């Protein structure tokens, strides 16, 4: 009987894992689906073609997949804090943030990663991209920056859990909004462009890097310095983390 129980547990685990992977792939595909839906009606969006927008979405998704893979524990932070479980991370010998994040490795994100890469390759081939080594290096540089920016923004939002309850709703609301930033920022007025560049820097995750890669004739050359934004944001996120950790231990929950 013990053996059959064991098998049941393992099957359950496999089922959950499979569901998780399938889930992420479905979410991934439905985002591509959505733009396909829109482009069914119009050929051009703010001067960008379907495949350029497809590329943009693929790029943003790829940038986000590293976060899903290695930093998925962030989702649980608010719960751990509210439930008092968080205190056990305080007495660890190594860096707390690293330790907290390293605890969860979300292998289900691999499906998401693969579909994103697939989407990018597909769009790239339809756009007839001819990339040599310099272009590829540029791509990797800005992809890394995009990942760091995306991660830092999500971390700062997640760290609000140190001071507010129920931040899961904030996370979901921001998720919805970030979905809207996967389009050429030129469609939004100056106010929102400012917002998405300096306040909620979502523009650095998709629009600016892809603009540099696909339409470099359009851009302001200062954008080549955008990796600085990634560094800055990550430092900011780390600062917020430290403040949060200090304030939490202060209340002594």
């Amino acid at each position, binding site marked *: 009987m013990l053996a059959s129980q064991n098998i049941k547990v393992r099957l359950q685990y496999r089922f959950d894992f499979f569901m998780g992977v399938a889930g992420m792939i479905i979410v991934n595909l*439905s985002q591509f689906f959505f733009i396909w839906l829109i482009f*069914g009606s*119009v050929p051009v969006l703010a001067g960008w073609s379907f495949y350029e927008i497809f590329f943009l979405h693929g790029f943003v998704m790829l940038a986000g997949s590293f976060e899903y893979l290695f930093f998925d524990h962030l989702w649980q932070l608010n719960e751990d804090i509210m439930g008092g479980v968080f205190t056990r991370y305080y007495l660890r010998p190594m860096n707390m943030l690293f330790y907290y994040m390293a605890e969860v490795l979300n292998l289900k994100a691999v499906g998401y990663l693969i579909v994103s890469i697939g989407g990018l390759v597909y769009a790239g081939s339809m756009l007839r991209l001819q990339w040599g080594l310099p272009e590829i290096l540029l791509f990797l540089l800005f992809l890394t920056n995009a990942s760091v920016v995306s991660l830092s923004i999500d971390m700062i939002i997640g760290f609000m859990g140190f001071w507010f309850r129920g931040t*899961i*709703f*904030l996370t979901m609301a921001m998720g*919805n909004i970030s979905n*809207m930033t996967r389009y050429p920022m030129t469609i939004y007025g100056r106010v929102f462009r400012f917002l998405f560049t300096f306040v909620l820097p979502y523009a650095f995750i998709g629009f600016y890097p892809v603009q540099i890669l696909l339409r470099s004739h359009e851009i302001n050359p200062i954008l080549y310095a955008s990796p600085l934004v990634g560094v800055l944001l990550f430092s900011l996120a780390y600062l917020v983390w430290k403040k949060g950790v200090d304030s939490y231990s202060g209340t002594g929950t």
Partner: protein
Amino acid sequence: MRNMAFRSSFFFSIGGNLLFIFLLYFLWQAIYRGSAQPTINGMSFHDTYLYLCIANVLYLLFASGVDYWMAGTIGSGDIVMTLVKPMDWQLQLMSMRLGAMAFNLLTVTVPTFIVISILLRPGIRLGVNLLFILPSCALAFTVSYLFDFFVGLIAFYTQSFWGFSMIKNYVIRAISGSMVPLALFPGALRTVMDWLPFKAIYDIPTRLLMDRSLDAAGMLSALAFQAAWAIILFLASRLAFNRSIQRVMIHGG
């Protein structure tokens, strides 16, 4: 009661949704600019944007979150206590949800509709359709609730409910009309969507409020569609619920 404790999160989701609607305005402006004609599948920009505003407000109203609540109760084991009580669990959850919805209706929905009608002229249709709107919303809520309940039952079977629920929410958001009006879906897909229950939750009540091409016969058949799905889902969820309960009993309830 639980909603009160999450007041900050309430404002987050309202604020987030408002920002989202703003962004939707620009996105759809850009989409229509890229189109050769002023209407797409018979809907002008004004029609589409009015539709999306209403659909998004209804989303805040009808998205019940019952499945999350169920997962929480089932996961923590509290479910056993609840099942011992004489009152029907499904009804219990529904009444809880109705209370939250009434609150939402007064504080969010009505003011927002007033604002929409002021900003978007012509706004919400004021005619014979108003006779149908109340029953339609009641049915829409019922379908939404029953579907969520049905999905929530999965929590009886698996630990990793979160991922599944997130997908479900994402997919429903995408295909229910809150991001793209169903009228804009391409041919074959539109036919499929015409038979699925999701149209009953957002598309039908939304169109009742703004579609001026809908006549009384059309409204009646729309209501009948909603009622039919409400009945189907009710029977299905009842069946599934009883089977799930049996399972809990057998596995050491």
